[in-house]
């Protein structure tokens, strides 16, 4: 893929939750989130763009896992029409909504 040969950027990035869980996610999938995309943009000169590691102090592991799941769901369905909706447990809904709003997803 194009990402692997752009200045030696890793194909994968690591998302870290507030309680220390780490999720290694395909860069292209994670860039579905506008916030993460801006963090990782090589031109942005954020620390995240060099380390490929994003720490989210306000998102816990359970929610971040769901977010990572969404990234892959979205990546898998990126060119499909009539995509079945992803299942979201109602109890996670509000927290996930806050996270999604924060991540611009």
């Amino acid at each position, binding site marked *: 893929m194009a990402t692997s040969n752009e200045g030696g950027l890793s194909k994968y990035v690591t998302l870290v939750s507030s309680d220390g869980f780490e999720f290694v996610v395909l860069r292209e999938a994670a860039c579905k989130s506008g916030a993460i995309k801006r963090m990782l943009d090589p031109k942005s000169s954020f620390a995240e763009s060099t380390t490929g590691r994003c720490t989210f102090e306000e998102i816990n592991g359970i929610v971040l896992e769901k977010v990572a799941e969404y990234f892959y769901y979205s990546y898998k369905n990126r060119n*499909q*029409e009539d995509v079945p909706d992803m299942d979201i447990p*109602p109890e996670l809904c509000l927290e996930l*909504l806050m996270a999604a709003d924060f991540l611009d997803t």
Partner: protein
Amino acid sequence: MNPPGPPAANRPSRQIRGPQSALTDFLASHNISANQIRQDALARRAAAVAAQQAAEGSGDNGDDAADAADSPSAEPEPLPARRRNESKAQSAKRKKEEEKAIARIKASKQFQRRRRQYGSDDEMSDEDEAARALFQETMAPLPGQMENCEICGKRFTVTAYSRAGPDGGLLCPKCTKELDQEEGSARKRRKTNAGRQRRQVQSNLLDGIYPGAKDLVTLCVETLAKNVDQAEDFGDLPPALIDRLAAILSKKRLLNPTTLDLFLKPDRDTVTVYDGAKLSSDDYIKIFQIVPKIKHLRLRNAVQFKNKVMDHLLDTTVELESLSLHGSNLIDDTRWDRFLTEKGSHLKALKIYHTDGYFGDEQIKLLAKTCPNLQRLKISHNQKVTDKGIAHIANLPGLQHLSLEIYKPTSSPPYVDVLNSIGPGLRTLSLATVYHIDDSVLKAIHENCQNIFKLRITDNEVLTDQGFANLFTNWYNPPLTYIDLHKCRHIDAAVPRDNPNGIGLASRGFEALMAHSGSTLRHLNVHSCRHISLESFEKVFAPGTQYPELREIDLSFCQNVNDFVVGSIFRACPNLKTLKVFGNFGVRDVRVPKGKILIGVPNALGMQIEGTGEDDGRVI
């Protein structure tokens, strides 16, 4: 299978032979047909003979033959029962018999005739299949006759609707129902699924969710709306998300007194109810009780927001800065007067829709006295305001946004007065359904307005092309971002294509418009302006032109729009999201670039998307 239909020559035709005998009549009354009995006997005899011959021919012993075909005198054993109990050898034999019979059918003249009649390729493509169908048809009992069910073995009356079972025999109604339920539901669902899917794709397309998955925020909001009955509190969601939730709950008609509570928090300053049809007067009063610091109130379909609620509002210390009321047609003029007098001093925005018989000229007159801070005024779907009332708007010097949609016929002079008075301060101007205003209004806009970024003038049959051209030529106003001039066109039922007096937005006006505002324009609606010529479109969107801001264009019912124009627009507007072309029959087969949406292509396929960049092209 037992296909009904083809007129089989060997089917027992009813024989009409004069008066019936008493016995025949009696039997018929008990649903027994003498004719049928004879036919059955004949068939049995023929089968026996055939079997005998076959047995002799193939050298089988007579025992087998007797076993294979029932002897004519014996009561015919019910077919399914025999099949159920038959041994392997018997089954093999039966199969052999069947094959022979089918071979005979194939050779028969009647079969050849029927094949010719059907045409050899479509319905009965396979010769074997066709012969088998014919065989089973001759074996199958006729409607009205008794038969044993293939599955349960019970006797039942055969009807035209009797269903064939898995082995070719007929089924009783009960077993038919069971079998239908087993496979029928799947079959039915598959059928409706295709239609649902197509509609869903089109619906998503119109919503702009296309292609790929919905974003996570949308998914969460939808899930939350689905489970709103479990929610106790939205926590500290940002206002933008609260608004989206309010919208989706109303869309799903879930906004009721219980869910309203989720939106009422004492520290909020905004309450939006997009569909208040299920709320009572007390619920509206509750809004002011729970949220006393409310500044922005927006209610739609708020029928129950009536005098009682208004009285309560007047008794509170609530100081509304913006009020948007839709459908509150039970607040009388006295209450409106009191509201404007007592609460008007804080009011910055007032939007009222569908007030029916209330809110007229007197109230607008009062606005000038009591609402010195009013910046935004919208009076929409109003049945009471007249020219006189519109003239009073000229006395609102602070007004920046004006939107009127008045039902009573209005004329140009009051609009000109208003524009002469407050035109310089206006930032948006929307005059909908102004059937009779003339070019003097356009002239007043041209002369007075210098800060407008949104302009709407719709449903007019008087304004001329020249008038529009003059408006947009050498206009001191900076380029606009929103222009809606739909249905400004000449109407003549007899000669619809001619426009001798140059009425409506046509070629010159359109070119002047794009020349003036093209650089910043985001929304353009010239729906039904059908006298804009093809040359004009080609010139405006010619190679080399660029309209970087255009997001949405509506060119519906502009009859000169064709494939080439649409292609040129896609090229000239890099940020375009949607283009509407309803009723433009010149648009036939356009490839739509990825990420853009073309709505209203007049063919069954809808639009075709071409892949650009990294992904493959797809066709929907």
